[in-house]
């Protein structure tokens, strides 16, 4: 009995650790090699806090004479352990997480893991050295000290269930959606006006906090905290559990933790002393094979019993407002545009919304854009035209500061936005699409669009925890708006389809819906019809002219002269990074010199 309870406890510790790591690896797509270090920090913290003050004969007194233990009761100490782990994690992660390259985080956490294990072993005066900090008082529950595994298993079981629910809910919340967006396309999350560093730092801290909780329980159960329980091997074991189980799926993590956790007693019985080495071989190979042949893991992201429940509930929740039938004819009602703060009435004198002045950028010796000056008029469609390599997309990148210009100024609605980040620019009312879509492929169409809806307080993990009902209500509204945006482009029937499963043309439409959802007044569309089959092109053209009718200011990069002629009120002709001419497409195409540049002499 006690034997089995002990095995169950071990498995549950692994489960908690892996569930916490899944928030990072699975949902956010960032790999931490230091999860065991935060597990350990939780363990040592609870140990130092709960051990009695100055126990005779125990070598935990530091050279400065400070007693090792603080003599705290168990649960307050657990709380502090969680906080300490989370705080340390956030602090070390900031410099690594502010880089786009995930490798920085791997390297940083790897180094941190090794340093932490080493310090646990060598700072003898605080940690007890290689043999560990001991004896740590057992955990208490309603005033009772729990020592027997059969008692502890209940507390650890409750903690595991809570961890599961917490991680699951966090992952499926609006905050989780942002995390998944970061995993899929970090730049696109920024482009719809959201910061990505803060969510990453927060989730890193939260994951470490959960690991800290597991560590605190671990130390109180074994009554010892020793370096080898929290070393790199443990971190990697947790990674293996997450990967084998399936990323971004807590159910998979639970299954894999049970499988890998059961390896221990089985191998102990089979090979005895060499059990740990065999275990390493087995989960190492399993990692290779899974990544090679089944990268989605045992229980893939969009599967499992819980997902099924969620889907069904969702299906009857946000009823599609109006005609939820076909996508062909849409009523181009201007005020149907959601999230557009004060759609501008048509009529008054042309008003300059965006001013681009003297924009220049060189790459090495090549002037990609030089001294480009033009502006966008409210409620008009302006097309950037010119031959391949004229600098059209680069100009988009410069305007939105995706690439830092060498020179030049951008003014939006009279205020300078030069040098602002792409997410800040989006929040101020100018958003862009990407030539290659940059959709969040493993998210449904509606989640893609919902990501772009501004001012989502429910994305704040704190509000998420303290005001679940508010979040639920707000999320329903967000989904409704997202659905309306999809409806504008005629994609509402596919709202629940994963974007990866949509045709290329449909993906482009979802991208436009996402752009609309930002509520931005100025939309920069980068080749909205490239790669879209001809029948769907008409549809895209309709959507874009509807947007103009709704008062949006649009700038588009487009190759098809035909489309520009039909859509654009005005065209800016670029060649070799310079603005050669402006005017209607007809006027421009009437000029022989431009025509030659455009079509080649």
């Amino acid at each position, binding site marked *: 009995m006690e034997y089995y309870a002990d095995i169950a406890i071990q498995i549950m510790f692994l489960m908690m650790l892996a569930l916490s790591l899944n928030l990072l690896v699975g949902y956010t*797509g960032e*790999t931490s090699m230091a999860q065991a270090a935060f597990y350990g920090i939780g363990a040592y913290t609870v140990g130092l806090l709960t051990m009695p003050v100055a126990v005779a004969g125990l070598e935990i007194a530091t*050279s400065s004479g400070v007693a090792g233990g603080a003599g705290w009761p168990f649960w307050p100490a657990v709380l502090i352990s969680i906080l300490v782990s989370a705080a340390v994690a956030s602090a*070390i992660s900031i*410099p*690594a997480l502010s*880089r786009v*390259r*995930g*490798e*920085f985080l*791997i*390297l*940083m956490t*790897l*180094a*941190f893991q*090794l*340093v932490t294990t*080493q*310090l646990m*072993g*060598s700072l*003898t*005066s605080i940690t007890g050295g290689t043999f560990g900090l001991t004896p740590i008082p057992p955990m208490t529950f309603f005033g009772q000290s729990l020592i027997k595994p059969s008692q502890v298993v209940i507390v650890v079981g409750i903690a595991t269930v809570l961890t599961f629910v917490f991680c699951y809910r966090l992952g499926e919340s609006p905050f989780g959606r942002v995390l998944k967006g970061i995993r899929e396309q970090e730049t696109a999350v920024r482009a719809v006006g959201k910061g990505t560093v803060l969510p990453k730092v927060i989730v890193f801290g939260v994951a470490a906090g959960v690991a800290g909780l597991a560590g605190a329980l671990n130390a109180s159960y074994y009554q010892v905290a020793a370096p080898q329980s929290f070393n*790199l*091997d443990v971190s*990697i074991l947790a*990674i*293996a559990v997450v*990967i084998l189980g399936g990323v971004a799926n807590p159910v998979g993590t639970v299954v894999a933790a049970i499988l890998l956790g059961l390896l221990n007693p089985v191998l102990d019985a089979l090979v005895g002393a*060499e059990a*740990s*080495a*065999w*275990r*390493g*071989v*087995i*989960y*190492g*190979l*399993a*990692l*290779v*094979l899974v*990544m*090679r042949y089944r*990268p989605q893991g045992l229980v893939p992201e969009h599967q499992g019993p819980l997902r099924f429940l969620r889907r069904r509930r969702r299906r009857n929740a946000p009823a599609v407002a109006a005609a939820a039938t076909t996508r062909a004819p849409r009523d181009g009602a201007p005020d149907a545009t959601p999230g557009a703060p004060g759609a501008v009435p048509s009529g008054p004198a042309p008003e300059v919304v965006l001013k681009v002045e003297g924009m220049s950028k060189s790459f090495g010796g090549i002037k990609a854009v030089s001294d480009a000056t033009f502006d966008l008029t409210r409620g008009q469609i302006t097309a950037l035209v010119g031959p391949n390599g004229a600098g059209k997309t680069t100009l988009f990148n410069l305007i939105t500061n995706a690439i*830092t210009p*060498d*020179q030049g100024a951008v003014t939006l609605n009279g205020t300078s936005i030069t*040098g602002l980040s792409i997410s800040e620019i989006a929040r101020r009312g100018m958003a862009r699409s990407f030539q290659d879509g940059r959709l969040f492929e493993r998210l449904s169409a509606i989640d893609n669009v919902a990501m772009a809806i501004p001012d989502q307080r429910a994305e704040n993990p704190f509000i998420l925890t303290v005001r679940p009902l508010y979040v639920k209500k707000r999320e329903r509204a967000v989904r409704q708006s997202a659905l309306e945006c999809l409806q504008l482009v005629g994609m509402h029937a596919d709202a629940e389809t994963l974007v990866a499963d949509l045709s290329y043309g449909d993906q482009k439409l979802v991208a436009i819906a996402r752009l609309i959802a930002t509520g931005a007044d100025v939309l920069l569309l980068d080749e909205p019809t490239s790669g879209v089959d001809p029948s769907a092109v008409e549809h895209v053209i309709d959507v874009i002219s509807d947007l103009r009718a709704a008062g949006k200011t649009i700038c588009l990069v487009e190759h098809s002269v035909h489309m520009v002629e039909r859509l654009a009120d005005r065209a800016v002709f670029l060649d070799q990074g310079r603005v050669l001419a402006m005017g209607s497409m007809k006027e421009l195409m009437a000029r022989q010199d431009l025509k030659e540049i455009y079509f080649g002499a």
Partner: protein
Amino acid sequence: MHLISAAGASPSLVLQLVVSGVVLGSFYALLGMSVSVIYSTTKVFHFAHAFVYTAAAYVALGTASVLGLPIVLAIVIGLIAAVVLGVTIELVVYRSMRRSGASSLGIFLASLGISIAGPNLIQIIFGPDGRNLPVGNPTLYTVGTVTFTTWDIVTVVVSWVLIGGVLAMRRSRWGLASIAVSANRELSAAVGISPQKIYVYAFAVGSLLIGSAAILFTLNQAATPNMGLQPVLFGFIATFLAGVGNQKTAPLAGFVLGMVVSLSGIWLSQTFQTAVIFGLLFVALIVRPQGIFRKAAV
């Protein structure tokens, strides 16, 4: 225990630490070069490099002590094993994963799996205890108050000869082709360079270097199954500190790393070496001018 030694370090200690810094720095430079050759060209976070390192040492000492082959031959076999292993990992694991559209994170995780399975397999075969390469004891040289051994000289010379060789090869057809591939894979393929071949070449060269580093290490110290982790971590840190994709400066960064670690011995005990390197990485990540300073300069 005391963590911090007396502040006024003697000049002879400093001199000794400088000399060990040169040795350690040369070794780290070799590690940095090795990781950089692979990483800058293929962008694979080749964590299994740690296994290649371990394998080189164990194959060499296995053939020498178990089969009783002459030591030089055993070392050559160890190096060949490293190259074969590195290239095999690329061909069997990474290439097929790349074909099936795996993300770089996915490839890293597979690599991580290899780096776990491999050393544990070695532990099952050879046992967990340290094993020495039967090379005998080196000669001890004393110049003034500074001492060093034959192996120290060998380490410095071999490291820089290998690094020099790789850097010189950058001017060759292969070298230029790999620079092209690392700059733009698609475009290189379009002008007739096969990225596949270049990748194999990068893994072969990188594995040869890391294998050499492993042999140099085992001249001095015992080989253990998880000996590969730390050197590969240091190699990666050197690569990232130098700036990703900058092969020429990676050995330099490695050298500085070794020097700093050694000189930190004036104040810190040896157990804090990793902490020093971590601190360097941490600080460098914060203050490294990546765009920020460039923008300010305009």
